């Protein structure tokens, strides 16, 4: 079976998905993804030329609610800050972005 996805593509996708993979993991995923996608490629034989996508699965439309704060439905800030590994001045402390 010809390869649908190669090592370079897996590495690129892993980068996009922020997934750190070892060389061994890349090799394993190349194989398993090719096995799966090779099997799933049969879907491309189904004639969908005149078929809409199924983006809407519930038939529900325009689900809205009033935009008001509901403090009783929220966790307190103290509860949430208590869950953070590091805080400073009641803010979450994370590694630098730049």
């Amino acid at each position, binding site marked *: 079976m010809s390869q649908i*996805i190669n090592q370079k*593509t*897996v590495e690129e*996708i*892993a980068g*996009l*998905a*922020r*997934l*750190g*993979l*070892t060389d061994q*993991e890349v090799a*394993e*995923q190349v194989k*398993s*993804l090719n*096995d*799966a*996608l090779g*099997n*799933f*490629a*049969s*879907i*491309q034989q*189904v004639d*969908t030329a005149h*078929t*809409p*996508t*199924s*983006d809407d*699965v*519930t038939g*529900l439309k325009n*689900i809205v*609610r009033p935009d008001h704060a509901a403090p009783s*439905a929220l*966790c307190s800030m103290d*509860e*949430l800050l208590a*869950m953070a*590994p590091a805080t400073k001045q009641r803010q*979450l402390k*994370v*590694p*630098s*972005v*730049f």
Partner: protein
Amino acid sequence: MLTITETQEKLSKKEISAKDLVEESLSQIETWEPHLHAFLEVLEPSARQEAARQDANIAAEKAGPLAGIPIAIKDLICTTEGHTTAASKMLANFSSPYDAAVITRLKKAGAIIIGKANLDEFAMGSSNEFSAVSPVANPWNLDRVAGGSSGGPAAAASSGEVPVSLGTDTGGSIRQPASFCGIVGLKPTYGRVSRFGVIAYASSFDQVGPVARTVQDAASILQVIAGHDPRDATSSATRVPDYLSYCGQNIKGLKIGLPRELFNENIPAPIKEAVMVAVKELEKMGARTREISLPLALASIPTYYLLVKAEASSNLARFDGLRYATLDVDTKDLIDHYLKARGKGFGPEVKRSILMGTYTLSAGYFDAWYKQASKVRTKIRQEFHDAFLDVDIIASPTAPETAFPLGAKADDPLAMYLSDSLTDPPSVAGLPAMSVPCGFDAGLPIGLQLITPHFKEELIFQVGHAFEQATPWHTKTPSLPNSNKPSQ
């Protein structure tokens, strides 16, 4: 092992207390857990406290519909007690600050959360071998898998550790383990039960459902958890019927469709035979059966996997080793942190899912894969809709196999995906479907799958209960090897 209905009778006659029920559950857990690993966390102190509260409610005649009933919760559903880990290193030390909607409803009904049940990591898997903690064994044969991803809930209910569990089902994750463990498992209609507080795998497929030893017990749980929730924009306002009232109604004249594609040559003969014997029982009670065709049924497998992995890749983007729970990684900046934390925190099946989903959503590949799958889903939904113009209910085997040996498919992801071949079709169409035990092959349970149109769970209960009353399968219970009691 008592059913919920039997338990409620004994509670009302004061023959048993909530405390007794919790102690019995904890005792069964102590006996079975070294063999099964169905639980990630047993919430002994809070369960005992809640039992005392429920006994007080029962004495004051303020008991809810599930007062005193111990329940295991798949560890994908947020509870304020204990942790919610999704059986992943990524969330190993996460404690939810709020209860999921289904938990709030169960608590209000008086149910007692005994513990958080094991699962395939982030609900991705069909054997419970992808749990980052441990696999789950099948109570009927400890060398076999319990099924997945709700292997923990299924094993806990099947063994008697609890009378009932709550699982989730995306492509078969309640039904297939229920089939493997010889019990009842229901995936409700998409939108029937709120997903608020449920860690998302695939947002247009996921549903929470009961895993129980009888159809009536499954109906009791759905009665409590079903209904509209304003916090879940996909939850339906469709009226919730009195499900229990349908248990006991006759099935004369009901038309049952048997799709030839779901009885194909890849299904082992003993499974097809057991299901056909089950169908004959339904005919004896007045139902009429006919063969139908769902030509795209088996196209559900690629349709399902392409869509759910795409949705999963998006849903799991939030897990960065910073939010929810921290992972200890040595990093130089934020991107490096993401790469290392997600590399360390996720297991191989989760990584494969994210990679597949990211690939099929990316520019240049989107049309051929994701968009095509989305269109085929429309066609599959239409096929089921057309079939239900001629029949009331569709029956098939639940799984193309009985419980396979631990390790048999762990290194073969495609083989694992194909375990879902019979449960994927109703999932793709958003239809309710339930597995009920209908026999054994070489000591391993076989499941019968019943599928109805959207929001017709009452019909599934009607047929499932009628089948149960005419057959012995729901009375069979596993025993540990070398125990005094043989499996029966």
